[in-house]
């Protein structure tokens, strides 16, 4: 008896920006091509298609990843957020707003990847992750301040051929500051609420 011919296609359900899309993909299809060609989400850009430039950066289960090296079939069951999914209606994400306000781009092609990456960088730093330029990685040393040097290292997976790095770093610094401020405010409100309950 001849062996069953191997299936080279699968039906997958991709959860993108909170919406589920069921489609049949050739297993060779990358998540990047599925997003752009099948779901018409062209905000995610194809630069090198080899994992070297970061233009296709998206968030997978809240973590940044390059979509060009993910197979669409392997992305089933994961929460995918693209640059199209960052804003709340008309309200831009603070990182998007900071890039706009500080000219964190020139031609704009790498920008969606830069922005998705920056969103994750700020969360990674807030979670206390060290980086390659962190002087002391031991947990007792505490989280490193998010200096320009730290931002440059953490954003090094996103290339910008226009060389807009100076303002990209400023935009990430500003957005990180806004996030830290919001966290302090929330913490303050929580403390006040706790006190109220105790009283």
């Amino acid at each position, binding site marked *: 008896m001849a062996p069953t011919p191997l299936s080279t296609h699968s039906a997958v359900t991709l959860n993108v920006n909170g919406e589920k899309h069921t489609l049949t993909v050739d297993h*060779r299809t990358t998540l990047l091509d599925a997003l752009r060609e099948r779901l018409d989400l062209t905000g995610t850009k194809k630069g090198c298609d080899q*994992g070297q430039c970061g233009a296709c950066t998206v968030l997978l289960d809240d973590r940044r990843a390059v979509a060009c090296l*993910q197979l669409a079939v*392997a992305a089933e069951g994961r929460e995918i957020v693209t640059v199209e999914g960052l804003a709340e209606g008309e309200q831009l994400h603070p990182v998007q707003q900071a890039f706009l306000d500080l000219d964190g781009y020139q031609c704009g092609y790498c920008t969606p990847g830069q922005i998705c990456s920056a969103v994750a960088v700020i969360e990674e730093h807030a979670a206390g992750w060290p980086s390659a330029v962190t002087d002391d990685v031991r947990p007792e040393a505490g989280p490193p301040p998010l200096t320009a040097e730290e931002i*440059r*290292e953490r954003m090094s997976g*996103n290339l910008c051929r226009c060389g807009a790095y100076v303002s990209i770093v400023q935009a990430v610094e500003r957005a990180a500051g806004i996030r830290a401020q919001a966290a302090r405010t929330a913490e303050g409100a929580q403390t006040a609420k706790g006190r109220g309950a105790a009283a």
Partner: protein
Amino acid sequence: MKEFGYERAADVSGALALLDGDPDARFLGGGTNLVDLMKTGVERPGRLVDVRELPLDRIEATEDGGLRIGATVTNSDLAAHPDVRRSYPALSQAVLAGASGQLRNVATVGGNLLQRTRCGYFADVAAPCNKRVPGSGCPAIEGEHHNHAILGASDHCVATHPSDLGVALTAFGAVVSYETPDGPGRLPFTEFYLPVGDTPHRETALPPGALITGVTLPAAPVAANSRYRKVRERASYAFAIGSVAAALDVRDGVVHEVRLAFGAVASRPWRAHTAEQALTGGPADAGAFAAAADAELAAARPLPHNAYKVTLTRNLVVAVLSELAEEATR
């Protein structure tokens, strides 16, 4: 890219059953290297067995005070783990020195060990390469080899292993665990990669069809004072042209214990046993560090365009051990 079948495994035995010893099938972890190589035609598997969801994503303390790291732990989770950062800081630093945040979030520990060389001839399917097509030749020896091996290479292949993580793992005496349909096995890191010889296409001592399930780090108090330093051609997001993982315990000015490994110099992460022996029991000063590096690098056989690696590695050893010696006496 060649068409391929895709299946997702839920547990180790399921993964082995799906692979079924098929030499045309590959395990898919994060895919950061494998998918890239499939795009260029270097890898042409007929089937992929996705192992990313296997329950091997934990880092646990072992009874003797070491750490057991599951094969599907991502590089990011490994580097950020408090026990790794506290007890084996050079391991965290090595991981953070590799790739980009996007890749580290996806890449797995098991996959890192099995990643392929970044030799340009290996990556170019139009070029001969003994590692990719056994017997076809090695153009790097006469050609572009400025980032190729100076230690342990052969006339058949001078490619280097690109892992940063592996350099720290070999310094700390890690043991690789794997599973096969016939049962589990373990390989010390120094035996995990095979000598190049005339079979550069055979890279590891893993039995065919084996699945890496994890890496165990033995307890190593010396590792608490450790460091990884990497030199590359740009400030970040590039492969090493030289790297050193080192750990040092100095007592009364004398080297009580030392661990030393080099990256980007050989087909495998290079444990510097000769240098370690030369240093142990001797003075912890720059002269002794340089002499020990020279003893290790006496075996180097550089090619015309990579002799700089001998000096680079020697200087890295002196710099990193000097810093660690200073920290040990602080």
